[in-house]
């Protein structure tokens, strides 16, 4: 190979390595509610579910960009969640919520919500059993 080739190829390789290193610090992590509370202000992912014993606060007429609810996780952690966006429609029915955001003092400041709703999961056998059984019940009534 000619020197020019090597120089160009090496510089491209260096660029790519630099970029990968540069974006390596770019990752966030999955946390539990209690471990997230220890990392105040750090951007994390929480996997939790809706605490149905607490109220969901959303009044679109007043402020369509304010939603708050409580989330609990499998380890018993609990936190208030504030989401400055509209309420996802299936929130109440969701089985699992993946939330991205930061823990701020008394609440989790959420930037993005991904819901796992049972109705979207046809391949879930348990859900199918429920659906088909309900169908029968409703025909009896």
């Amino acid at each position: 190979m000619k020197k020019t080739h090597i120089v160009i190829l090496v510089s491209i390789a260096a660029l790519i390595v630099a970029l990968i290193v540069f974006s390596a610090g770019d990752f966030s992590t999955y946390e539990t509610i209690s471990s997230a509370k220890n990392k105040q202000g750090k951007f994390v992912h929480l996997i939790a579910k809706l605490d149905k014993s607490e109220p969901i606060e959303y009044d679109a007429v007043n402020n369509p960009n304010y939603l708050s609810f409580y989330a609990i996780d499998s380890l018993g952690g609990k936190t208030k969640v504030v989401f400055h966006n509209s309420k996802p429609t299936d929130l109440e029915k969701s089985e699992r919520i993946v939330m991205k955001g930061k823990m701020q003092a008394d609440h989790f400041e959420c930037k993005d919500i991904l819901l796992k709703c049972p109705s979207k999961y046809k391949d879930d056998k348990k859900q199918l059993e429920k659906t088909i059984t309900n169908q029968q019940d409703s025909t009896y009534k």
Partner: protein
Amino acid sequence: MEFEGEHLLPGQIGHFFVLLAFVASILSTIAYFTASRKTDLAEKKSWINFARLSFAVQLISAAIIFAIVFFICSNHYFEYMYAYKHASKELESKYLLACIWEGQEGSFLLWVIWHSILGIFIMFKSKEWESPVMTVISFAQFFLLLMLLGLHISDVRLGSNLFTLTRNEIAGPIFSQPDYLNYIKDGIGLNVLLRNYWMVIHPPILFLGFASTIIPFAYAYAGIQTKRFGDWVTPALPWALFSACVLGVGIMMGGKWAYESLSFGGYWAWDPVENASLVPWLILIAGMHTMVIYKATGHSLKASYLFAFLTFIFILYSTFLTRTGILGDTSVHAFTDAGKAVNIMILLFVAAFTLPSIILLIINLKKIPTEKQEESTNSREFWMFIGSLVFFLSALFIIAKTSVPVYNKVFGTSFAQPENVEFSYNKVIILVAIIIGLLSAVTQYFKYKKTAPAYILKKIAIPTLLAAVMTAALAIFYPLTYYKMGAGFLGAAYIALFAAIYSVIANGAYIWSGLNGKLKAAGGSIAHFGFALMLVGILISSSNKEVISNSGANGINIQIKGKDPMTKEVDNPQENLTLIRQVPVAMGPYEVTYLKDSLGHEKGRRFYELLFQRKDAVTKKVTEQFTLWPDVYIMKDNNMSSNPDTKTYLGKDVFTYLSYAINNDNKPEDTAQFTIHEMAEGDTAFYSNGIIILNRVVKNPDNEKYHFKSTDAALMADITLISKDSMHFGAMPLVQVDEFGVNQVDDTVYAQNLYLKFAGVTEGRKIKLGVKESDKLIEYITLKAYIFPGINLVWLGLIIMALGLMMSAVKRAKLSTFYAALALIFAGVGLFYMFLLAN
């Protein structure tokens, strides 16, 4: 137990043909493989004949399987699990095909069918390459059919059968009754989120793209297998071009679908599922260019092998990513986990193609001929190779980031996506865009082998100057406004914009000056032109995308200036806006009013009428107005989908969708009564939240709401409401007398829940004004609205690129020009209609 009303015959026939197709795919793999190793011509011929027969059996079986699945779904035979899960009686017939490829099994079947069809072309057209190439295709069929096999071996189920019975799959008390079918009233049906015409067209095109990438792979294998190390490139190149075109169009159809009917607010979000199909395309583009280099100069043969192999390997890897449920927490549209057995089979599929091909390549690396003469830096091949390398490296970068859930699984880590996912890709990809833009602008002006620098400078001086002027003009008259990520990124965006414009101009100029307008040979330049145009569109639409429903752009919601007191952050997107019925709200350059909602043809679908008006700043006259009808689709299982509506201009789109809508069906009965006030002009009356002023009474009004002539008999009360919070509202109730009698036109002030009625006239120039304060819920919707500029450039660029690629494929395959031209025109018109007109 005997069950009543079941139709078991189609399933039995169907499963028989699955088994037959599976066995036939094994036979054709073995026979083609044997044929490819025979030197005795007569023997070879007889093996090939047998292999062809087996492949034909497999092909016919696949067609029959598809027909039976279609039959079962269209007849709503819910005793079959597949029909129960994916079809339903209320499903419109246009979605029948879509519901077949909604599921894992159906989309594998689609893939099988495309491989079969491509196989026919290979059998008849590839001459001496037939046996090695078809060996690979048959082998892939073996794996795909294995996924559909549904055979039980002790406890393990090999593949999921399309024809399993509902009662065998789901445990439920109803299956203990012989007449259980009477209780299954309807199937679950196609997911409402997928009910869109793109669901009918996007999967088959994308899967044709997936399926066709196996052909360059198979030819590369054939090159090694036959020891004709360089000869495979010529027949493989047109297929690579075809594949690049179809896969590219398939991916962008997904983007267009996401843009126009899913409420993601854009056409590309760096979602893992999107990335998984983009990565093979990038590698394919790299490989296609190295193949061109090899044909012209003899360089880059090893790279061509590598890229041809990796393209299909990454297709398989993306199948693994999207179908094993491993992306579950990171993607909005991955398939769900299909069960361990299927996951293992998919992994085997990936391994069975990756390991042999890479090992073969390594073993034979020394035997693959290389040019002794080095590329000069003044040669076209050198810069093309650099471009290919950049494409390849960017593909590696994207797939490395996308594979994070895989590392987590393997190493037990818990890495997640960064805070700003899109930016973490964009900051790298924008550099790629700059390099690719510049290279695709300049490289064609280089000649193969060696070019005099003076020649290049002379040729590209004018395009360079033009591009610089155009970028500068854009910067002045239509600047990019993406300040969010700082000046550095904005600078990079401008450089990328220059590079893209440069490429558009340089490739356009090259068709004239380099090729003297010979359109037949211009496929490459046309594809580059389209690609660059798409880049321009991407840069403009993503930089200047503007949220017009944010609280900063209107005065309704609490404005948050500077730092948010809650989060102590500046960048807090407050992108939703609530519109109370009939109350106009300023939104960007428009005044938007939610007028009414109405039901659509489909059950559960509700359309919301939004009036957009643009008013002259001085005269307040309406200079432009249009209506958008975004809709919300609520299914029987309460699954909701929100479908945007878009006003398309040549240069921009106004795009809006409902982010929150309450169900207005269960309104409580309105029990409030009208109270009557007697008022003269100028009088004031009270209501619970403020005062009502009767400004004047107008006879036969002619204004924006009513149009009466002086011969009519109508009286209108001109009313102003002032609420406690000093908001002013106007109202114009009216009474009219004509030959049919007295007609009252009530007016409503939704914001105050107030109904006003012109109830009559009394003595002393007083009128009776009926006032009702309703306890009804206020009708409102919450929406998001954007302005997307330059979006049409993205679609137009894509279509031009696709046509350029097809032109190259036609030319390289030496097809009949007349029919090719006809097909090109047909494809071009079709794509233009789908992407730019049909919405």
